[in-house]
């Protein structure tokens, strides 16, 4: 019984001693440098994305410019909150562990100092212009299984007559549509015929 009491007292004393440890540890912790992300913006134009839409058998080609998304990378020097596990142990007994860790967090956040800013790429591609009809564009239809290529031009209204071509009996279940622009070939879409069989 006596031993149990002693152990309990040691544990209690340990926990009492640990009170305020998280904030204390955070205060004495060394500063670390880290990079955080700031505002997002629009970068260089990377491409034009073409879209082919079908309505009542009429295919219309539209285009929309796409840009690289930029993000502000902020280099900061700060202290990181420490003693999370200790604060968690304090929590069921006193409820003050939460306050201790909150103080540690506030102190860590307050210690933040900005070192510099840089604009970098976020790695995403985002639309950066209006969707417009793509008239007089050279379209390539690739029939992958029969290895045929069919060339077409969109008319003044940016429409394409594909009905006859798609009705042709062939082994091709998927037809890839591309646009040829300044010798580069851009993918538009794949017309899927798999569910027509």
């Amino acid at each position, binding site marked *: 019984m006596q031993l149990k009491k002693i152990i309990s007292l040691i544990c209690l004393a340990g926990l009492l001693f640990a009170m305020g440890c998280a904030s204390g540890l955070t205060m004495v912790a060394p500063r670390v440098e880290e990079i955080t992300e700031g505002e997002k913006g629009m970068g260089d134009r*990377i*491409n034009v*994305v073409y879209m082919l839409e079908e309505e009542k058998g009429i295919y219309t080609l539209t285009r929309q410019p796409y840009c*690289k998304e930029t993000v502000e990378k902020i280099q900061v020097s700060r202290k990181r909150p420490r003693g*999370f596990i200790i604060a*968690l142990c304090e*929590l*069921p007994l006193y409820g003050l562990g939460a306050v201790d860790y909150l103080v540690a967090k506030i102190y860590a956040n307050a210690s933040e100092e900005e070192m510099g800013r840089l604009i970098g*790429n*976020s*790695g*995403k*591609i985002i639309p950066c212009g209006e969707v417009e009809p793509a008239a007089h564009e050279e379209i*390539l239809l*690739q029939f*992958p*299984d029969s*290895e045929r*290529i069919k060339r077409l031009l969109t008319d003044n209204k940016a429409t394409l007559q594909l009905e006859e071509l798609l009705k042709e009996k062939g082994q091709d*279940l*998927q037809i*890839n549509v*591309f646009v040829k622009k300044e*010798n*580069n*070939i*851009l*993918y538009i*879409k*794949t017309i*899927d015929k*798999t*569910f027509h069989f």
Partner: protein
Amino acid sequence: MTTPKKALFVLLTALACALPPAVLAQGVVNASCSSQIAEAFGRVVLDDFKKTTGLGVTLHVFSSQISVNRLKNGFCELAASALKLSPEDKKSGLVAIPICKDPMVVIACKEITVSNLSLTEVRRLFSGHITNWKEVGGPDLPVRIITPIQETAAYVNFVRQAMGASQMKFDYQAAKASTAVEAVSHIPGAISFATRSVVSKYSNIKTFSVDGMKPTSKKYPYMQTFSLITRGQPSGVIREVLNYSLSEKVRENMKHLGLTPLVD
């Protein structure tokens, strides 16, 4: 709920809240690639793609079949394969965009003096019926058949296109199509098959005409198609990879490597 269980629940909830969110790789395409295609294009293409677009590709090299299976099972977003997609794969939502084609060539070590083989001789050589090169007018050397493993696109395509009803035999098997080429360059009397763009990187390997048709001929019938495969319609970063693969610069590079662009 008992007190220890409650405490455990609180502890786990607190830990779950404290853990950082999963790190998501933005602007990086996770791709699986056939070893033949990886070998044909080389690492330079990936570096140039990153330089041109500012986007990255994490590439894992496997056989074509494994690459497609990884795509189907969601382990990657893009696969490069030398196998044609089956109608079932297409119905399951996979989309194939054939990019280029490359002749499948019969190769041997440099010591073999013969330069043309008939299709019958090719079949008899690979089925083990011809055991010495002198039977086809070559030197007195035993024929050593080296093939890539059955799971590779090179094996599947060669058997499908050239072997007819003949049964393929082998003395050695290589895990990758490109390893078989390396083996042929070192083993006297060795014969194998591979995609031409990989073979052209070796100076000590002989390629054969088949039935008088050189692999450079437009009528050469044994070809492999290299395709990019996606789950559903390509969009976003994957679309950029595709557009880069179809760009004038890459198409010119394909021609330089001896490949034939399919969209030109």
